């Protein structure tokens, strides 16, 4: 089933017979909707009159106040119902579209799937907003291109209706949905608040009562969520719950209380949530709140405990607000800022996040840390990625009673590739690579993180995607976007480096041709688009330029044969590992051997030699089937010969990229030192400085290379 396919516009035919006129009318609508990539269409006929009228009003008005287009739109179920979320203007816009499909069947409505568009292109005229993008969907479909058109209405007119058209990548039309405006909020949730007898539940707090990092305003729990784009509707019911036997609550007792007192409780996914204001948990006064609902359909209830935070003092009221918003955040499947790496899928922790989901005492930014620093800077809001989750997460990843806690708790990076509306990170991420690669050539990109804020910045120095601070997404020639997943996860102590005027940038080179889930990524000629994101410790996401990389078609039979030998899965893994004797990778080693033997003069042979040269420079331990350890000693002479050849082939414009060449020359020198040939090593390092001096590198890069050359 695919709600984006044209056929499903007429699935109502199962319920009743459509006339040929009805079908013809729909078909006729198609030519007028046909667009070329990037072309802005005129508004639909049925909206034209309204927009012309509005335009007339606009021209006569001194100042024009347009309605925001952001918000939630909903189509009529026939049988597919589309809930569309448009997030393009208003408070903290995230430049995204997302939506959920539900399918009516008889008198039931069943969730089908969700989609999100992260980098839509937007055209705005005085009468129409047109949004076009490629959707990431939870179901397989060829209709991934979406176009949304929303007539621009002034504030004097009612909100406009959105027209959604799905298309294939080649602009073949799919389904069309007409979605009237429903709400300025992206989601609406019913909140029931009950309290334990003797507990005075939190109502509101003026954020100007104590120093903070945001504007002073009076926040209730509902208003805090409204600011994030989530409407919290009071259930209109409130129960006073007797104290638990023994005076303290266990998680099981809390769950039972929820079942008994939460008027809307059902063990199903629904936009309803229970917040219980209680006094004490079994754990003791150290527990201020908990999202206790982690059985059955999870995340439908949470509790705050007032034993430690009761009272009207400003600090207590602030704590009560913080705990309540925070626990409800868990119900929406948000993890702590310092636990993001434990989510499924994981994300880097954000210790410096000024978010409802951090612990004030765990706060750790550049030069500030601890509780006082947190409160002084906290603007009483969720961080950027949490807002994206709240507004655009796939239905089951956020709905109360959906996926278990932590599953789908954050959109993966590929889902986060639109430009930041505001970027005060002080950093710039750049991807560089040759404009084109030969078919079968390992694709290596240079990742550069550069300081733009002259005050300096401390950043993790592990830019390789292996470590998770930089993530890459790759759009293949067919339009499919995949996140680059390194074959092996690296867990390493975070080391940082200070970027300042003396060292304004750091660089890393990464082979990205082989991926854990997709194997060989660049396995067909064509244009690939790459984009990276750097997750800064303060929670900022620094997006890179979009790098276009073309994989050239083979020019002849020899090119094809060599490409064939380079593109196996084992070869990809060997390139990633820089060689291995592992028996399971034998076919890859055989292929590289064949490249060296039969096609030694082919430009790609340099990579086979590099892999083999690196591998032979190291000892290799192999645990045999009989559990005995077999050790292959380094083969220095052979390794030196291969690496020297690689260096010679890369001195000019051909061969390896600069960073890989630098790495190879340092390895060669190391092998020479280990073989007791210090003079040769010194000569290699001298040659390295000479080669890179001729490559027009930036002075600070050359300075690093000269430093490396001192052995």
């Amino acid at each position: 089933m695919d709600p984006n396919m044209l056929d499903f516009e007429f699935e109502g035919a199962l319920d009743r017979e459509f006339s040929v006129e009805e079908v013809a009318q729909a078909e006729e609508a198609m030519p007028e909707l046909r667009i070329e990539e990037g072309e802005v269409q005129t508004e639909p006929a049925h909206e034209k009159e309204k927009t012309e009228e509005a335009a007339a009003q606009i021209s006569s008005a001194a100042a024009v106040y347009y309605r925001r287009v952001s918000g939630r739109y909903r189509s009529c179920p026939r049988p597919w119902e589309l809930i569309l979320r448009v997030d393009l203007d208003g408070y903290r816009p995230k430049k995204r579209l997302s939506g959920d499909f539900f399918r009516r069947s008889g008198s039931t409505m069943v969730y089908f799937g969700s989609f999100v568009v992260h980098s839509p292109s937007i055209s705005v005229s005085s009468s129409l907003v047109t949004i076009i993008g490629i959707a990431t969907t939870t179901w397989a479909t060829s209709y991934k291109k979406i176009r949304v058109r929303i007539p621009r209405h002034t504030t004097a007119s009612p909100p406009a209706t959105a027209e959604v058209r799905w298309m294939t990548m080649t602009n073949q039309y799919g389904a069309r949905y007409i979605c009237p405006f429903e709400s300025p909020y992206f989601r609406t949730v019913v909140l029931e608040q009950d309290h334990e007898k003797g507990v005075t539940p939190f109502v509101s707090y003026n954020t100007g009562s104590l120093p903070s990092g945001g504007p002073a305003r009076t926040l209730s729990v509902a208003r805090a969520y409204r600011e994030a784009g989530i409407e919290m509707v009071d259930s209109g019911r409130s129960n006073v719950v007797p104290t638990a036997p023994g005076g303290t609550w266990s998680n099981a007792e809390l769950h039972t209380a929820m079942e008994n007192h939460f008027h809307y409780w059902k063990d199903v996914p629904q936009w309803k949530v229970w917040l219980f204001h209680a006094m004490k948990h079994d754990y003791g006064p150290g527990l201020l709140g908990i999202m206790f609902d982690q059985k059955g359909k999870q995340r439908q209830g949470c509790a705050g405990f007032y034993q430690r935070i009761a009272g009207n003092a400003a600090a207590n009221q602030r704590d009560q607000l913080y705990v309540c918003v925070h626990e409800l955040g868990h119900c929406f499947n948000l993890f702590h800022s310092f636990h993001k790496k434990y989510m499924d899928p994981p994300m880097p922790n954000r210790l410096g996040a000024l978010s409802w989901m951090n612990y004030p005492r765990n706060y750790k930014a550049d030069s500030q840390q601890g509780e006082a620093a947190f409160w002084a800077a906290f603007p009483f809001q969720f961080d950027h990625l949490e807002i994206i989750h709240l507004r655009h997460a796939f239905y089951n990843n956020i709905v109360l009673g959906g996926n278990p806690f932590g599953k789908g708790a954050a959109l993966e990076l590929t889902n986060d590739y639109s430009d930041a509306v505001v970027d005060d990170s002080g950093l710039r991420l750049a991807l560089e690579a040759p404009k084109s690669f030969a078919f079968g050539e390992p694709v290596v990109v240079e990742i550069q993180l550069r300081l733009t804020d002259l005050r300096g910045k401390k950043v993790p120095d592990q830019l390789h995607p292996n470590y998770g601070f930089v993530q890459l997404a790759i759009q293949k020639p067919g339009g499919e976007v995949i996140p680059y997943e390194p074959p092996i996860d690296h867990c390493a102590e975070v080391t940082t480096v200070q970027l300042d005027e003396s060292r304004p940038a750091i660089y890393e080179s990464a082979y990205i041709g082989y991926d854990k889930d997709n194997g060989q990524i660049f396995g067909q000629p064509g244009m690939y688009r790459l984009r990276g994101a750097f997750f800064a410790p303060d929670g900022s996401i620094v997006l890179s330029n979009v790098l276009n990389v073309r994989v050239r078609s083979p020019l002849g039979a020899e090119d094809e044969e060599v490409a064939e030998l380079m593109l196996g899965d084992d070869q990809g893994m060997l390139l990633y590992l820089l060689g291995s004797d592992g028996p399971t990778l034998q076919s890859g080693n055989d292929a590289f051997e064949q490249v060296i033997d039969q096609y030694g003069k082919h430009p790609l042979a340099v990579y086979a030699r590099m892999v083999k040269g690196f591998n032979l420079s190291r000892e290799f331990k192999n645990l045999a089937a009989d559990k005995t350890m077999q050790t292959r000693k380094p083969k220095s002479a052979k390794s030196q010969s291969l690496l020297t050849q690689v260096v010679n082939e890369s001195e000019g414009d051909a061969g390896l990229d600069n960073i890989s060449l630098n790495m190879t020359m340092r390895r060669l020198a190391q092998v020479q030192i280990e073989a007791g040939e210090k003079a040769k090593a010194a000569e290699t390092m001298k040659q390295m400085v000479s080669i890179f001096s001729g490559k027009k590198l930036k002075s600070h890069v050359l300075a690093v290379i000269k430093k490396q050359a001192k052995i």
Partner: protein
Amino acid sequence: MLTLQIDLQDGFSSDIVRVLVDGQPVLELEDVSTDYSVGLAASAKTEVAPGLHQVEVTLPSKQLSAIQDVRMTDSLYLGVSVDEGRIGFRISKDPFIYF
């Protein structure tokens, strides 16, 4: 006697956990997993005399073990976490806060 509270915090995932204080078992649990809604997996209290004591935490299923010395002059709180294949400790004079 003074109270030593030991909180098993982040990084536990279906683990067997043994905690010994001065060689005496104070906690032995199976299937210990961190509840990330609060960042706590399990907790235990033990009474000890003032002075220096040795706390040993072992996760046999992960072949991890670590020892922490604690000097008791008043009640003390010891947080234990597993991160990147290592057991880590945090000592606090105040109770840890969770929410």
